[in-house]
Structures are given as C-alpha cells and as structure tokens.
C-alpha cells in the first residue's frame, strides 16, 4: 500500500532497517515520536537469509506498528557515487539519461546495476550525484521488494547518520564532511543539513589503519578532493569518534594539509534521552537504523531513494494496470488451454462416434464388425493350418530317386520321414536339397544303415517345418 507524504509525517512511529550483506545480517530499529524528539522503542538483528519482506513483517508484528513507514538502508560500502552534469530535460527522460551516463562511467551494463540520484541546480544545467549498486545480494533484495509495499524508501545507510548529526551531536556547519569510523572501515560523508550528498567507505580495518595510516589517508584525501571539486571549496571536516587512534591521526594529518578538521562530539544527554546512548561507541549499524527510522518520520525528502526511482519507472497506476494485464493474460491463456482441451475432447468424441457409425454400417447385409470377426477367425485358421500337400511337395522336390517309406507329422514335434536310397551319397544329397527348401530347417539324418541283402541304405530324417513343429 502506498503511503502518502502526510501519512508518513503524521505516523507515530517508524522503522529503519540496515542491510549488511557482507555480514549477512539486517539491523532494525523502531523509533517513535516523543514530544518534539524521538525515542527508540525497539531494536533487533536478523539473519539476511530470512528475507527482507519476512523481516519487515516481523518488525511490524514485534514492534506493534502495522502499517508504519519503513526505510531500508543499503550499506554504503556497496554503493558507488558518480557525479554528472545533465542538460535541463523533461523529468520523464531523466532515468534514461542518467542510466546512459552511468553506463559510460562504470564497467557495468545497465541491467547489472540499480541507480538512485539526488539533483541540485548547477552552473551548466543540473548537477546530479548518482548512487549505483550492483545487482548482487542487495540489488536482488531490492528487485524482490514490492515498490508499493510497507517499505517507503530504500536509501544509503549513511542517510541515517545524516539525520542523527543534527539532533544528537554538537553543532557543526550546515554543509560538512563527516569522517566516521565504522566496523568495516571509514565512511566519508558529505552532508548538507539532514541530507546525504555523497558518501564513500574506505574499506580498511580501523586497527590496520592505525598501524599504517598513510594508505587509508591516501584514499580519504582522494575522496575529499572529489568533494572539494564538487563543492568548489574545502568543506569543513568533522571526525567521529574523536578518541579513536586513527581518527586522531587523520585529524592531525588533514589539518596539516590545510583542511578545517575537528572532532564531532556526541550529545550524550540527547542520545540517552532517545535511548541511543549505548550504541555511540559500538559503531553498530543499529544506530544508522535508528537514524533511518527518524528519516522516515521527518520532513526530509530522502535523497538517493532507489524505490522512488523504481516508482518513477513504474507509477502506481501502471503497476496496477500491469498486474491486471498479467492476470488477464494468464486468465486468457488458461481459458484458451481449457478451450483447446474441450475442443480436443469434443473432436475425439466425434471421431469415435463417426468410426463407430462406419463400423456399424451394413454392406450387403453384413456388418463391418461381423466382417472383422470373420477376418480374425480366417487369420487364426490360416496360422494354425498346415498344408500337408505343400509339405509332401517339399519332400518330393528333394527326393531324386529315393523311395519314401513313411511320413510322420505331429504338431509341435519335428517331421519324421523314413526312406530308402541306393547309396549314402544319395542320402546326403537328399539331406542337402531338403535343407534348401523353403520352411525347412534343422535337418537331421538319423541312423542310416546299409541293408546287406538289398544293398540299399535305409534311413530316418527329422526336420522342422515352418512354425508348426516348434
């Protein structure tokens, strides 16, 4: 459900969620209005595997704030900020223009990244700072997030600190750079009032940085130079927490290089009143989550809102229309499928009845069914019928001078014949000729014996004939 700006600003409480994809965790905090200030009422850590949507529901359930605005913060170390100048163009053409320029500056295709931006009037057109996130873990989470669901904005997590700076820290210039030590490195944030303008995270372990400050300082100075180029002047730098070893080294180094650098002091009283006091020295993303919750309740329009960009690409009406269209298309497909099945079924029935009619038709007073039965019977009889004449003819064809004495045939037994020949050669010749006859196989000569009285050879021969003897 889309929350209007008025509903958001009037909400009694809101939630902030920070995604730390590298740690596989999600930090959440719920903040409620307390007079003119804010008070944290809930904080929790979740496993990223549980899924953002499920976690959002859990937060709403556990904090008793169904329907409250929720701002999601993407870890700034996964974001890349780009500067570009755009010609004054129609707002509808902006996304394409920004994407094209981002593609030119980053070694990624348009479909491999998600973009969000913040614009300010420039000398030559419009100055635009673009935050780009690769479509990996965080990007996929964003893709799955309903753009008109309970989450009202998806911004860099540093946007939370931008809210905290004005409320819970000692006064600082309206526009300043905050160098903040985090668990995963150092964040260099350019802040303008309660808004984040630009952010970079130098990914060096704080303990390592304290040992070898030069390398970390090199990266920090590069980012500060980029900020100086963008602002056209050296912006004052606030460092927090001021008592950390590297932060002290960095402050000295920056001052030495001509920057106006001072430690940022936390207002412990205000922090404790908002029940945030215990987190100040822990660098916990929970603090940023509380800042994001305050952002959700504040009048500040969040910059770098990835969700807003997606909404621009797909307005609510369009989303509804698209959903309706999808349902309609699905319905039509299902309907067509059902129609196909019904037509096929009907045509099958038609075919069966047509065939039945044809087979039931009578020709010369005889039904097709009767004819088929006769044909089946005829085939069965033909299979079972031995043509004895054909068998005797087969034997006669091979005889050549032999005298046949008997012929025995019995179903499933070899054919047996006895005969008399003039000599053995005649017997063997007969066997060979018989073997070549069609349907005859496995010819065996059994007991050929010369009759001394008649000087003739009497013998018995067995063979298989077609399928009848097997």
């Amino acid at each position, binding site marked *: 459900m889309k929350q209007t700006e008025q509903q958001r600003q009037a909400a009694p409480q809101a939630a902030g969620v920070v995604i730390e994809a590298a740690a596989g965790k999600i930090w959440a905090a719920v903040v409620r209005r307390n007079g003119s200030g804010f008070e944290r009422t809930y904080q929790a850590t979740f496993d990223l595997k549980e899924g953002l949507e*499920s976690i959002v*529901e859990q937060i*709403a*359930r556990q904090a008793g704030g*169904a329907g409250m605005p929720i701002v999601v913060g993407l870890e700034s170390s996964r974001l890349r900020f780009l500067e570009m100048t755009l010609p004054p163009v129609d707002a509808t053409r902006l996304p394409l223009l920004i994407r094209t320029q981002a593609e030119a500056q980053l070694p990624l295709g348009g479909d491999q990244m998600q973009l969000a931006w913040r614009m300010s009037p420039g000398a030559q057109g419009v100055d635009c700072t673009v935050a780009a996130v690769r479509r990996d873990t965080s990007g996929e989470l964003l893709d799955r997030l309903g753009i008109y669901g*309970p989450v009202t904005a998806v911004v860099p997590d540093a946007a939370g600190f931008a809210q905290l700076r004005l409320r819970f820290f000692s006064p600082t210039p309206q526009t300043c750079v905050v160098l903040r030590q985090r668990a995963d490195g150092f964040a260099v944030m350019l802040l303008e009032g309660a808004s984040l303008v630009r952010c970079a995270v130098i990914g060096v372990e704080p303990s390592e940085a304290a040992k070898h400050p030069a390398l970390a300082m090199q990266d920090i100075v590069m980012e500060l130079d980029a900020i100086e180029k963008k602002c056209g002047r050296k912006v004052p730098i606030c460092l927090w927490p001021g008592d950390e070893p590297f932060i002290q080294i960095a402050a000295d180094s920056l001052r030495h290089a001509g920057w106006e650098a001072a430690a940022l002091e936390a207002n412990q009283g205000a922090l404790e009143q908002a029940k945030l006091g215990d987190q100040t020295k822990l660098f916990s993303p929970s603090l940023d989550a509380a800042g994001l919750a305050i952002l959700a309740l504040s009048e500040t329009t969040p910059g770098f809102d990835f969700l807003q960009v997606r909404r621009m690409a797909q307005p609510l009406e369009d989303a509804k229309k698209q959903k309706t269209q999808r349902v309609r298309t699905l319905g039509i497909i299902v309907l067509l499928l059902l129609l196909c*099945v019904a037509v*096929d*079924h009907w045509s*099958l*029935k038609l*075919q*069966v009845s047509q*065939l*039945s009619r*044809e*087979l039931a038709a009578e020709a010369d007073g005889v039904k*097709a069914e009767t*004819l*088929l*039965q*006769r*044909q089946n*019977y*005829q*085939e*069965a*009889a*033909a*299979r*079972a*019928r*031995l*043509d*004895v*004449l054909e068998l*005797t003819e087969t034997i006669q064809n091979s005889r050549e001078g032999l*005298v*046949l*004495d*008997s*012929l*025995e*045939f*019995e*179903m499933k037994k070899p054919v047996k014949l006895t005969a008399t020949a003039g000599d053995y050669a005649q017997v063997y010749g007969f066997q060979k000729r018989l073997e070549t006859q069609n349907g005859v196989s496995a010819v065996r000569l059994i007991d050929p014996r010369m009759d001394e009285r008649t000087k003739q050879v009497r013998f018995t021969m067995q063979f298989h004939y077609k399928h009848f003897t097997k």
Partner: protein
Amino acid sequence: MKALTQRDKRAIKLMAAAAVLIVGYFGVFEPTLKSYRTLRSERDRLQKQLNRLTGIQSGVGAVQFKALSERVPVLEMPVEAALQGVRFRDELTRQLQKAGIQAKTLQLCDNRGKRQDGFALLTVDVGGRCSYESMLRLLGDLKRNPYYVGVEKCILRVDAKNRNEMTFQLAVFTYAK
C-alpha cells in the same frame, strides 16, 4: 480481534489456492484425463479396425488378403462345441467318401477343454488304408471343409508290397465356441 498480518493473509491465500487445485485435480482434471485416455484408446482401436477393413481393398493389404483367402477359401464361424463337432465330423466323412477312402476308425474327441486362439479345440481322428491318389485328393479337398482348421497329426506309411497303397492316421481339428 487481532488483525491478520500480510504473512497470514498470504498463507491463507496459498492454502485456498492449494485447496482449489486439489479439488480441481481430483474432481475435474483426473476424471477428464481418464475419460480422454479411454476415448483415445477407443478411437485408436476403431481406427485400426477400419484400417484393416479398408486395407484389404488395395496395396499390401490386398495381397495379404488374397494369400489368406487361398489358404482358407471357405469358412463357417464356429458355433457351440456339440454342434460344431458333429458338423465337422459329418463334412469330413463326406470328404472321405468323395475321396474314395474307407476309414477304419473315425472318432470325434473333445480334448477336455483344450483351447487355442481363444476357441475350444475339437479333433477328429481318422485311420485306415487308402491309395496314394485318394490321400492326395483328400488332402487337397480338406480346405474346402468350412469347419476344418488344421492338422494335428498326420502319419502316412507306404505299403512295402504295394507301393500305391498306404496306411494313414490323421487327426484334424476345428474350433468351437
């Protein structure tokens, strides 16, 4: 009453969809599929029968049918065993007489319920003595017996003294319902 969360609503929707799917499957889809399969097999069976009938009019089917008709030129569809046996025996007797063979034995056997090709098997055993030509006449004429199906046994022994004479033992069979 506590309002339903999105998760609860989604679970209810999923359960409802699953219930609809299950009921739809067993109530509509499965019976339709079964009827569809029955119809298909019925259609295939009828089509096969029609193809057999029409196939004998031309091509390979016609050649096969001609060969079949030569092997079994006449036939009567089998009837009850008692009637079929008598008809077969009588026709065989007539054929023996026509061939000029005086059978010494002629007996109809019921084969105790033996079946072949889905039919009861009835055998007639004939034995006797005849000339070579008579036997050839009988063997040639057998397929004109509309009840005759095949030869179960055939033993021919030529008389050593008169080679034109032979003793024979013939068991021919018919099919009955």
